[in-house]
């Protein structure tokens, strides 16, 4: 048992080291010319544009549910506070729920896709073929994905914030019949620009985690279809865990500083 835990821990630490090395390798390759333009724009579309529907749905329902829950809780407990729902929704979404839900959705959608694609390339020797054709796999495959992730995640998070606040409003006005002016007033009063910024800073880190870990897991895929399946699963789990971990770290860093 102790041996098992020890081996797993060692494994985990080795992996962290390998991911750190891959990150360094990626950063070095970002500046190598020629920049893989075409792959980069392809990834912007795949990770970003194609994820808009799923983020929209997640955001609108999150905002709506949040408004509903907090609204009824406030109404039944402290009468006359329900117009604060606007502020509560806006703060929870921009600070926490927007970045994290968006990142988890993208981890499931794009992270799994990246691992499966690179993993399949690995097991069908396409990665080897890249090397024999004088292309650097990190430069050709990882750089475009990581850059796209880092750029696209904050944009999607901003979109999530907006849509979730909108979802909250819809429920508050149509379903609960709250006062529109008061609701919007609390939203604007309680929400500061640093709330939004903190969320966006987090999302940049999440974008990096998603694309880097997904690529890493793709590259170490072994075996055939089964191997691809395994590494895709592991990739999504690893990404989600690391997102939650870094969310805590970043939250504590960002809130003590501001």
């Amino acid at each position, binding site marked *: 048992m102790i041996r098992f835990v020890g081996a797993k821990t060692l494994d985990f630490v080795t992996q962290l080291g390998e991911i750190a090395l891959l990150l360094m390798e990626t950063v070095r390759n970002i500046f190598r010319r*020629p920049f893989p333009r075409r792959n980069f724009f392809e990834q912007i579309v795949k990770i970003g544009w194609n994820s808009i529907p799923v983020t929209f749905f997640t955001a609108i329902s999150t905002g709506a549910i949040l408004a509903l829950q907090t609204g009824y809780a406030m109404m039944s407990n402290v009468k006359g506070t329900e117009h604060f729902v606007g502020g509560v929704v806006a703060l929870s979404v921009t600070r926490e729920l927007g970045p994290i839900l968006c990142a988890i959705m993208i981890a499931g959608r794009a992270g799994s896709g990246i691992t499966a694609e690179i993993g399949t390339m690995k097991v*069908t*020797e396409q990665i*080897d073929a*890249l*090397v*024999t*054709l*004088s*292309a650097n796999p990190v430069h050709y495959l990882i750089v475009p994905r990581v850059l796209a992730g880092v750029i696209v995640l904050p944009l999607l998070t901003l979109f999530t914030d907006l849509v979730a606040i909108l979802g909250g409003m819809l429920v508050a006005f149509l379903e609960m019949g709250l006062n529109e002016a008061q609701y919007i007033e609390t939203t604007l009063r309680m929400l500061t620009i640093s709330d939004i910024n903190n969320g966006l800073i987090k999302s940049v880190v999440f974008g990096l985690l998603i694309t880097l870990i997904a690529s890493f897991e793709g590259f170490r895929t072994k075996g055939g279809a089964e191997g691809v399946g395994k590494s895709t699963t592991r990739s999504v789990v690893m990404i989600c865990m690391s997102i939650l971990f870094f969310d805590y770290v970043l939250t504590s860093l960002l809130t003590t500083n501001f």
Partner: protein
Amino acid sequence: MSQTSDYAIEVRGLKKQLGGKEVLRGVDLSICRGETMVIIGQSGCGKSVLLKHIVGLHYPDDGEVFIDGKPLNGVSSAERLALLSEFGMLFQGAALFDSLTIAENVVFRHIQSRRYSQKEMDRIVDEKLEMVGLSGVAHLKPAELSGGMQKRVGLARAIAADPKFILYDEPTTGLDPIMADQINDLILHMKDMLNVTSIAVTHDMVSAYKISDRISMLYQGEVIETDTPERIQRSKNPYVRQFIRGEAYGPITTVRPFGRTAPSGTKGGKHETPQ
């Protein structure tokens, strides 16, 4: 350096462990200029690993690979890349990039270098596809082609940058006999037309006899015999004889990829083969 060898490719004392298993245990192999060397051996004997060392995909634990007399490992990455750019490799499953069209696959190297105009690249695509006997497929995706056609495209991609060396990993595996023979013809054709040095790894003896100038047999991570096809056929070495005749019983018994021994007493012929 005048001491550069007469050999195009020379492998000396190559050793490699993979996953705790000694795959190559000191391989020595010399390939002359313009020759086609075929490496035979059972699945899992280290043939493909050897090939991947020659094309720089693996780094040896010990030993060295010399290309035109120059060492491949332990040199600067620029020198290494320069040596490796002389190679074209045909992978077992063709390993075409499935997100790209056939044309983009063939001139992949040229597109990446950004030093060629579209017109030049179109010309190269047409020329190389014609050399492998394909036409009208340039705009298709790899998944739309049959296995044999994919291999031809893989070959077109391997020769697109006019390499000095072509490596073939199991060129005929998984193809029907007719398609396999067409690939054999193509390999011979490449040799005549391009004047290249080639190494092919295979366990298809029909193909080995047809395309090779010399055959080398790899057994348990070592080269056990190298000779012309005619002499290999008359070899006295019991391992070679068993392999080239494809006999289930003989000295070769321990062959499972994970180092487990086959059931003992195989010599007695307990299995289904009629005696």
